[in-house]
């Protein structure tokens, strides 16, 4: 009985603490004020584990067809480049202003600091899932609501080759016909 009372007290205290935090306004939600290291680590680990698990059964198609680069390149330029940058570009208003900062996709995954990216297939699965479903409260939209899987795989194919492209190659591939 005593244990039950103690548990009940803990639950009530927990709810009271959560309510205080929510309604006192002490949590700063400003994007120009970074999380503490612990909170950032918690959120990043949760995100990466969630994506890895959700994407593990996705089958990766053949992504070497040049047509995929052409279709994916045009979409990337219009939908992604303002946040994830173009070859030769170091930052943009969006890449500086968003928090968490969107990854710079013009550099190879190995050059990114932080979490593991896995092999080529794992990277492709992850990119496909993130483009299709987006990420909550991060600024990353769910493009799957308006784009079919074929177009999303084309973007994945383009992103695979993006770190190897020069600004001139990027201009040609992403230009409108």
């Amino acid at each position, binding site marked *: 009985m005593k244990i039950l009372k103690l548990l009940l007290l803990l639950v009530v205290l927990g709810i009271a603490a959560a309510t205080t935090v929510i309604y006192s306004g002490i949590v700063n939600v400003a994007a120009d004020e970074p999380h503490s290291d612990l909170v950032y680590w918690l959120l990043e680990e949760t995100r990466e584990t969630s994506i890895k698990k959700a994407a593990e059964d996705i089958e990766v198609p053949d992504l070497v067809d040049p047509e995929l680069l052409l279709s994916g390149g045009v979409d990337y330029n219009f939908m992604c480049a303002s946040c994830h940058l173009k070859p030769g570009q170091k930052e943009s208003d969006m890449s500086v202003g968003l928090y968490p900062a969107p990854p710079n996709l013009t550099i190879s995954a190995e050059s990114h600091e932080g979490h593991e990216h896995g092999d080529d297939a794992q990277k492709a699965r992850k990119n496909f899932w993130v483009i299709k479903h987006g990420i909550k409260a991060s600024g990353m939209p769910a493009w799957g609501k308006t784009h079919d899987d074929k177009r999303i795989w084309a973007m994945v194919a383009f992103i695979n080759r993006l770190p190897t492209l020069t600004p001139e190659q990027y201009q040609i591939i992403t*230009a409108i*016909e």
Partner: protein
Amino acid sequence: MKTNLIKTISKIALVLIPTLTLSMTASAHDPKLHAKKPEKADCSKMDHSKMDMKDPVAMAMMKKCMKQAEASSDKMDGKMDHSKMMDDKMDDKDMKKDMKKDEHDNH
């Protein structure tokens, strides 16, 4: 007392109004950076000697530039209506004939 107050207010207004007007129109940087215009491929920058034609990137670039070249030549063909040009020639000839006729009639 009143005139002093009016003078102070008008001085403040003189400083504040231009400052507010200017700050409203000021922007952090060139708005052109946000404009997204559809660009044509700049194929003149393609260096064929350095390209590996088996590489999907090179193949994609070649495809894009070939399509663009075809599209622009089609446009050129579309603009020139040969049938009309023939008619124009005929019209020219007819006009010249008429002019000669007129000149002859004048004699």
